[in-house]
């Protein structure tokens, strides 16, 4: 079995009196395709905010490749190799797509090397994502699926070891979902570990090797897609008694 890439130990996060995450522990292995599901408000996005550093957890530790990143600001975690896409796309609106990708390339992927190299790499990533024809326009001119692809492309430009995809497919058509899935499969083949948060069951079930289910801020199940589909607890969380 491969070493854990990401270890989450007893992570707790409170917003005032509300406990959004209570004592969550999980491990993601190197090279794994990992699914994270659960009803709305179950704490999935809060957890990845804690992992990526957008939020600080109130209790517990987070380890990435053996390094304790719990106290690390988000930008340093990105430089270590954790990249994420946002559920609601947050592009750099004043920049072209190419410039959008140059930010993580310059600041995270090769924090020391220069700008020309970044532009070349950015073009390559846009080509992989099928966005090369839009390299010189601003995100305002993109369609919904292109915007999602830009989110993934920009996360890719940080050259991560772990990619967290937060609902990259919500609101897309079935063909578009397949399109994004193909991209994620390809990235995984290239050695990138992927955590997928998704409501589209067809996509998560097909993509994930292992799935963790959240409900009300706690982990209620963990297993293969097959096992999760047959789990009574999970059914109850989604459909009620």
């Amino acid at each position, binding site marked *: 079995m491969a070493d854990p890439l990401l270890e989450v130990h007893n992570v707790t996060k409170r917003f005032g009196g509300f406990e959004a995450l209570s004592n969550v522990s999980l491990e993601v292995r190197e090279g794994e395709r990992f699914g994270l599901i659960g009803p709305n408000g179950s704490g999935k996005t809060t957890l990845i905010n804690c992992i*990526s*550093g*957008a939020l600080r957890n109130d209790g517990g530790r987070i380890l990435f490749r053996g390094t304790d990143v719990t106290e690390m*600001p*988000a*930008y*340093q975690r*990105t*430089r270590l190799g954790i*990249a*994420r896409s*946002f559920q609601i796309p*947050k*592009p*750099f*609106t*004043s*920049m072209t797509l190419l*410039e959008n990708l*140059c*930010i*993580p390339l*310059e*600041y*995270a*992927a090769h*924090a020391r090397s220069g*700008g020309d190299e970044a532009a070349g790499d950015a073009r390559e990533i846009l080509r992989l994502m099928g966005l090369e024809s839009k390299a010189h326009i601003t995100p305002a001119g993109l369609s919904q699926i292109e915007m999602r692809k830009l989110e993934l492309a*920009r996360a890719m*430009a*940080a050259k991560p070891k772990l990619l967290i995809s937060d609902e990259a497919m919500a609101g897309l058509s079935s063909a578009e979902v397949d399109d994004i899935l193909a991209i994620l499969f390809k990235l995984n083949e290239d050695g990138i570990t992927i955590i997928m948060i998704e409501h589209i069951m067809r996509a998560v079930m097909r993509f994930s090797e292992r799935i963790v289910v959240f409900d009300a801020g706690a982990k209620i199940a963990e297993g293969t897609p097959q096992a999760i589909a047959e789990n009574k607890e999970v059914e109850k969380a989604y459909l009620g008694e």
Partner: protein
Amino acid sequence: MQRRVFLASMLAVVVLGALVTRVIQNQYYYFAAYVILQYVVLATAWNILGGYTGYVNFGSAAFFALGAYTSVVLIKAAAAPLVVLVVAGGLVSGLLGLGIGYLTLRLRGVFFAIATLALAVVLQTMFINWEYVGGARGIYIIRPKTVPFFTSYVEFLFAVMVVLAVVAVTVAWWIENSRVGRGLAAIRDNEEAAECMGVPTLKLKLVATTVSGVLMGVAGAPFPYYVTYVEPSSAFNLDYAVNSLAMPMIGGTTTWAGPVLGAVLLGTAQQVATVTISSALNLLIVGIILVAFVILAPEGIIGLVRRVTKGKRG
């Protein structure tokens, strides 16, 4: 290539400024040009934080006045030379800038703007109550009788302001074309995404607020010698806050040329209006032009020019 052209033209401006003092005799022109150049510095400084980084500073007057009062203290206590005043004014206002940089940790958007406005009020109140620098009455500053190389002190101040303006614009130009500038633009567009893409947002914001503060303080440092009478209500005048915000907005906030253009156009218009109509009209002019631009050309003159040239090509 572009770098060489830019630096050469900046050098040309300095040389031209020096030559002008050999030709023009009428002292009024130096008085007027000093003010316009001072606004080039202020507008450029404002734009580094407001335009590049997206944090609106309503308290420019505080930074300017802090530079001016640092000079007052040093002149009174040690009769320090102008070079020392400029450096000291920059340092003190830079420290204040660093301080408000930490405010950005908690305050965004309009809340940050209000905090900077409050800062100006607090500082003004402080200086009103500080007897050593003249309190509310104000204080007279006596200029040195002579300066080497210049026939009058105002010509000298004009030359100093030319250099300061060139320095400020060069700093802005450098930031704009560097990794720092691209990081600041990412923060302006989306701070959360920037941080998640590896941009050290806090560090860069501190750089922006500090550099902006330094340049504003530098602009204020020669002020006591220019007016020879400093009092809180003129040093903290609303004009500085409004102009240093309006000039970049009118010129265009995304490039170094925007604030320069805005400051030269608006500054000149104000000077002309002061002489031909009345000095009270200044802010009215700025107000009307600003409203017109915000509605008709939110990207300023530079943005307007770009849109027109692009339209022709496409």
